[in-house]
């Protein structure tokens, strides 16, 4: 029983990280109806920036917030420069652009920082918190950070005029434009926010999986699964999906199929959800008009 509980709790901790990346995916999906294949690499790149800052002697939280700010700007710039030109292109062109971004970010990071694995510090103490024997303090901290991000996002979209404008732009671009919302910039802001959330996830996952240019491959896959399980247009659903996928992955990996096939869990979930219930648990069902 102890072992089971331990796996569930560890699953919640990684689930928090998947939830963050899933949230970033949902942000971009809501605004543009696109799935960002480069989300993981974007987060990985941000994490390397944080690593450089910390290695240059900056205190952890200083580097953390600076990185989040930098990622926001990076996200906005990418939307403006790279995504803008293909906004109205066929899906294939957009997917190819995302793949190009993925490849470029991956190789640039490898070029600058080399492909050797690096350790990344955790801001949380090494001793388990409150003397519990189930979770390391980094795991508890990661869950805490995810929940804080979620609350901040909720508050932003619910209580600020800018958040309202962004929601409006995502839901009905034409009408939003008529009431004076600059829809293009709202999309760019959405990208910025997604990149910032992704960077938080990257910095939280890096102490667990270690820092290397390919570290987000698996995480991105779980995040896709999480976003789909929760419903790809529902932020709260994505967070729920993240925790669910994290727990499923850990428990199934530990007791049923073995650690070697963990990624297959994501594959089965993705294909299963897409075929059986494409709108996920909490998503809106889409009906296309002929």
């Amino acid at each position, binding site marked *: 029983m102890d072992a089971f509980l331990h796996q569930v709790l560890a699953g919640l901790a990684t689930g928090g990280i998947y939830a963050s990346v899933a949230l970033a995916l949902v942000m971009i999906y809501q605004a543009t109806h696109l799935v960002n294949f480069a989300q993981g690499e974007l987060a990985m790149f941000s994490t390397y920036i944080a690593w450089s800052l910390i290695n240059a002697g900056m205190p952890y939280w200083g580097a953390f917030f600076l990185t989040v700010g930098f990622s926001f700007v990076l996200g906005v710039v990418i939307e403006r420069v790279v995504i803008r030109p293909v906004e109205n292109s066929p899906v294939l062109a957009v997917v190819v652009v995302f793949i190009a971004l993925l490849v470029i970010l991956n190789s640039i990071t490898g070029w600058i920082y080399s492909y050797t694995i690096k350790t990344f510090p955790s801001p949380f103490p090494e001793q388990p918190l409150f003397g519990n024997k189930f979770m390391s303090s980094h795991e508890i901290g990661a869950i805490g950070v995810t929940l804080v991000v979620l609350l901040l996002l909720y508050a932003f979209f619910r209580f600020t005029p800018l958040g309202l404008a962004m929601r409006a732009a995502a839901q009905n671009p034409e009408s939003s434009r008529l009431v004076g919302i600059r829809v293009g910039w709202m999309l760019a802001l959405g990208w910025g926010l997604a990149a910032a959330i992704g960077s938080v996830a990257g910095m939280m996952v890096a102490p667990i999986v270690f820092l290397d240019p390919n570290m987000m491959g698996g995480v991105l896959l779980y995040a896709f699964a999480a976003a789909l399980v929760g419903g790809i247009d529902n932020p709260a659903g994505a967070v729920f999906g993240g925790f669910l996928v994290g727990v499923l992955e850990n428990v199934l990996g530990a007791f049923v199929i073995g650690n070697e096939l963990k990624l297959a869990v994501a594959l089965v979930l993705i294909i299963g959800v897409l*075929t059986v219930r494409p709108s996920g648990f909490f998503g809106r069902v889409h009906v296309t008009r002929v």
Partner: protein
Amino acid sequence: MTMRKLAPFAVLMLIACVLPFAVSEYRTFQFTLVLVYAIALLGLNILTGFNGQISLGHGAFYAIGAYCAAILMDKYGVPYWATLPVAGAACLLVGFLFGLPALRLEGLYLALATFALGVSLPQLLKYHHLEAWTGGVQGITITKPDAPALFAELGLPLNQDQWLYFFTLAVALAMFALGANLLRGRIGRAMMAIRDNHVAAEAMGVNNAMVKSLTFGVSAMFTGIAGALGAIAVQFVAPDSFNIFLSITLLIGIVIGGLASISGAIYGALFIQFVPNIADEISKAAPWAIFGLFLLGFIYLMPGGFAGAVRMVFTRTGMAQLRRKRQNH
């Protein structure tokens, strides 16, 4: 084939036949891989370019083909040439089965599902219960086939690389003929009709579900046969050589070679084989940076790829000739 089309084709074939005698063994091996990639790219292009179904996981079918060939040769002593039909049939079946759930997925979601397949495949290949066949992380080493003794008797001794090149060339010709005929006929037109407007296609009496899943199967078959040939040429299969970047390489090949173009598969194969070799000298990461930049550049500036550009040059010069003729009258 008309005379006008036949002439360039004959020249091309002549070059292709002389090539292995003019270059080093290593270059011959590289050109063999170009042919292998060309078959794989044609397969992906049938699916993505002609039928509009995006696959980011075609490396998986390449891997299945490669493993089929390696396992049959290594464990069961099957001759190399006999592994190709088996690899093709296996991939046809797997592709068709994967195409069935994929029917319900459109555009982005299919890309997602195939991406998941591509990412998780190396892990599946490493699975320890399959290790008796797949060799686990170590993979399988196979031996390169010798040229049949017949050639030496005819006074044309071919070394292993040259023989494999000609063998691959023959298979590639057969596959391209098959692909071209398939795309030119009724089924090919149905594929393109579905890509352009699936509702209209359905209304015209095209069985969308059947055509789409069959296209998936045929596409996987092409890529699987290429995988088997690739395994024989490289003499080695291992899970980590079939990661998501292989699938991405194939996507890069069809975008740069030219979507929905048969000749584009050859341009794309030349590109993905030789550009990394040149770029490798700058840095280990350089090939992928260059791949990425080329991808962006092509999508923005030349969405038709090399094949599109070539076609444009020919039609322009053709138009110019026509105009000159008219003026002379």
